[in-house]
């Protein structure tokens, strides 16, 4: 090649090389941007929801008044063209007071608004039912007489009452969950024993004797239950005594028990610090509380717990299954066309739509395995199913099947990376093949196996479709783990963050109010998955350090 031609060629190839590098870098940057964009969007939309806006009172031209939070202002395109007059804007306002107005949100045309004020004493009451109330507490009634009259007096008197009611509520809940739960549990056990006795093959006299013993026991417990139930009723009526009269902006009033109010704030008088505290409290309640009002209010703790526990059970099931399968494929099976076929099948398994796994789980785990278990071990409860219905164990096993290909592939790679010479070193010391695998090969492959587990967990935590038919439900406030034997209830229904997103966002009766929760829940799901993955990665790094030494 002549010299200048060569130079030209080199310049051209350098240019090409540089552009290609730039292209690759650009693609990576775009990907990162997308991920950050998703996180930022979720964080902004979800996080904003918990921040308390100021309460605004609009006085309308027709004399009506509206109090609430302004969520957005919308330009109306058609009319904006005509005059570009800001007066044609439309305001979306959260007015709450669902029990009075029927709807939480109202659209108000700006041109209908005469004046806008931010009354300092405007109150936001979070309630156990009917959502927020925007307005004022006018009177507090207790013991048949008025104990506070006027907005200021009521506001000052309220905290003490609220504290009292919170204590009463806690007492009632303690009674319900503690003694009453225990008695119920025992009654249930006795009933089951009676049913068992009915189907048992025993001489008639003995049957009668035992039955009588059971009956007397049962009567004793039922009497105890009645006593406790009466106490609970008494506690409840004390709890519900004492009312507060509320007044909305439009002048309507409503009387409700003090105990129905979760919290009361005056947002317009709060400074940034107080609002930040409120924000933190709300986030905490969102994460730690049970849901209320068909999941549109309260927290989603059961869903977090259900997700984590289901993924944990799934990992416990999938890792041994996948590792043993990989061990056989890699270490024992004679490599050949059949093993290749099996590998292809395993890889294709990963591509089967997840709902198909759900159907399989329903047919196999729930109906076949669960049904058989019920017949063998819980015949006294039938026809009510124990394991013959969807539950957290079946969901975990279904997902384990779904993710097992990932673990097999990763574990096989991990095993293949252990050099032959290391295995021979163990065999040459008189170790059997099984000892070599167990003591040398598997520990050395552990980081690879854990990588498989991490991938499986990430996949499982995000699956929703198959779970909908094998045990996930909309509402299951009772956790699958509690203080009664056998403590971990593998047959329990459970809630899941992934489903909560769909359910809260699109199946709830109050979609407008809950849309922000969709973002918050999605953010939480990502946080939960990330936290679980970080834990697994920490474990993997620990193993790497342990087995690889400081030099590597």
């Amino acid at each position, binding site marked *: 090649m002549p010299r200048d031609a060569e130079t030209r060629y080199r310049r051209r190839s350098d240019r090409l090389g540089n552009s290609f590098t730039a292209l690759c870098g650009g693609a990576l940057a775009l990907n990162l941007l997308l991920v950050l964009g998703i996180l930022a969007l979720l964080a902004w939309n979800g996080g904003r929801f918990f921040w308390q806006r100021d309460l605004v009172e609009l006085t309308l031209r027709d004399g009506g008044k509206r109090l609430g939070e302004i969520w957005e202002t919308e330009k109306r395109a058609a009319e904006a063209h005509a005059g570009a007059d800001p007066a044609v804007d439309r305001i979306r306002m959260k007015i709450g007071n669902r029990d009075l107005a029927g709807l939480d949100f109202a659209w108000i045309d700006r041109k209908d608004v005469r004046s806008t004020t931010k009354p300092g004493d405007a109150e936001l009451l979070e309630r156990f039912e009917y959502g927020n109330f925007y307005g004022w507490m006018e009177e507090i009634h207790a013991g048949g007489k008025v104990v506070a009259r006027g907005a200021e007096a009521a506001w000052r008197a309220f905290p003490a009452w609220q504290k009292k009611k919170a204590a009463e509520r806690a007492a009632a809940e303690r009674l319900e969950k503690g003694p009453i739960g225990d008695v119920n549990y025992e009654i249930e056990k006795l009933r089951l024993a009676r049913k068992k006795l009915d189907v048992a093959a025993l001489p008639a006299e003995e049957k009668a004797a035992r039955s009588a013993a059971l009956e007397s026991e049962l009567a004793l417990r039922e009497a105890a239950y009645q006593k406790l139930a009466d106490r609970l009723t008494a506690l409840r009526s004390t709890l519900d005594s004492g009312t507060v009269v509320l007044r909305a902006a439009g002048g309507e009033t409503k009387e409700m028990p003090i105990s129905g109010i979760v919290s009361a704030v005056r947002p317009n008088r709060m400074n940034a610090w107080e609002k930040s505290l409120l924000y933190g409290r709300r986030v905490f309640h969102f994460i730690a509380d049970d849901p209320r009002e068909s999941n549109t209010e309260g927290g989603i703790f059961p869903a977090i717990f259900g997700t984590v526990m289901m993924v944990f059970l799934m990992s416990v099931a999938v890792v041994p299954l996948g590792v043993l399968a990989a061990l056989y494929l890699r270490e024992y099976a004679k490599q050949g066309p059949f093993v290749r076929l099996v590998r292809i099948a395993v890889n294709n398994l990963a591509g089967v739509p997840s709902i198909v796994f759900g159907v399989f789980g329903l047919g196999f785990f729930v109906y076949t395995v669960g049904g058989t278990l019920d017949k063998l071990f819980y015949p006294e409860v039938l026809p009510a199913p124990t394991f013959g219905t969807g539950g957290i164990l079946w969901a975990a096993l279904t997902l384990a099947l779904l993710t097992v290909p990932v673990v097999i592939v990763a574990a096989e790679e991990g095993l293949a990376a252990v050099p032959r010479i290391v295995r021979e070193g163990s065999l040459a010391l008189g170790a059997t093949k099984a*000892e070599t695998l167990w003591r040398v090969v598997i520990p050395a492959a552990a980081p690879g196996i854990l990588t498989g587990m991490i991938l499986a967990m990430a996949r499982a935590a995000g699956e929703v479709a198959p779970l909908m038919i094998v045990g996930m439900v909309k509402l299951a406030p009772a956790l699958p783990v509690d203080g009664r034997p056998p403590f971990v209830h593998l047959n329990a229904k459970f809630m899941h963050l992934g489903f909560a997103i769909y359910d809260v966002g699109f199946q709830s009766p109050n979609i407008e109010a809950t849309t922000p929760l969709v973002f918050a829940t999605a953010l939480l799901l990502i946080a939960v998955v990330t936290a679980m993955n970080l834990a697994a990665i920490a474990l993997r790094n620990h193993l790497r350090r342990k*087995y690889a030494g400081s030099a590597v």
Partner: protein
Amino acid sequence: MIETEPRTPEAATAPAAGRDPALRPPIEDPILDVEDLSLWYGEKQALHGISLEIPARKITAFIGPSGCGKSTLLRCINRLNDLVDGVRVEGEIRFEGEDIRDPETDVNRLRKRIGMVFQKSNPFPKSIYENVAYGARIQGIKKKADLDVIVERSLRSAALWDEVKDRLDESALGMSGGQQQRLCIARAIAVEPEVILLDEPCSALDPIATARIEELMQDLKDQYTQVVVTHNMQQASRVSDYTAFLYLGKLVEYGGTERLFLNPLKKQTEDYITGRFG
């Protein structure tokens, strides 16, 4: 260090009389007896009717150009070739009179009695302590005190104790190459074998580390029978008492190291050791 041995075939026992002195030197107290051993990898024959006796508590070297079958022969002795797919062996290897290829032989017990050190050091991805204790644990020794004794004794025998006694819990992969190889020797002697097979133990080491390994082999000579494969003729002449020269899967010449190097009986041997080929 190289012993002189009787050159006359008359000194050998009666059955040896009349056999080729280049192939069947008289061996006192043989511990291993290879008899007409042939080996095929699939269709390809790698060893052709090899017969030799290996003396107890001496160092025997296998030399020869790459691919001559010396490592294959070595790996037959502890039956590590069993693991290779499509391998077929004929002939006999007697270890203290018992045929190791007998299907009744417990191969794990055999490998415990015949230890091996590999070409590339292969410590397990575990701590130094666990590497040495591995063989003992396999044999069911669980008591920490017993293991401590074994680990210390083995590391001392491998002249490694002073270097690692303060970091027994660190990963073995953090050691230098020479240390790793000595660790592998310590690991091998921890199970108290009778024979140690060394498959080119110094090929990946620098001269100083090599010298230490060779020194160690001399120290271990009183207790263990050692069989070393090497492609380094100086090493063979330095460390071994007997040398076998293999070429293309056949045993060409076998005898006392000094005799073989100074006075080769076969032309091929002479050509190889003088560097004319190989």
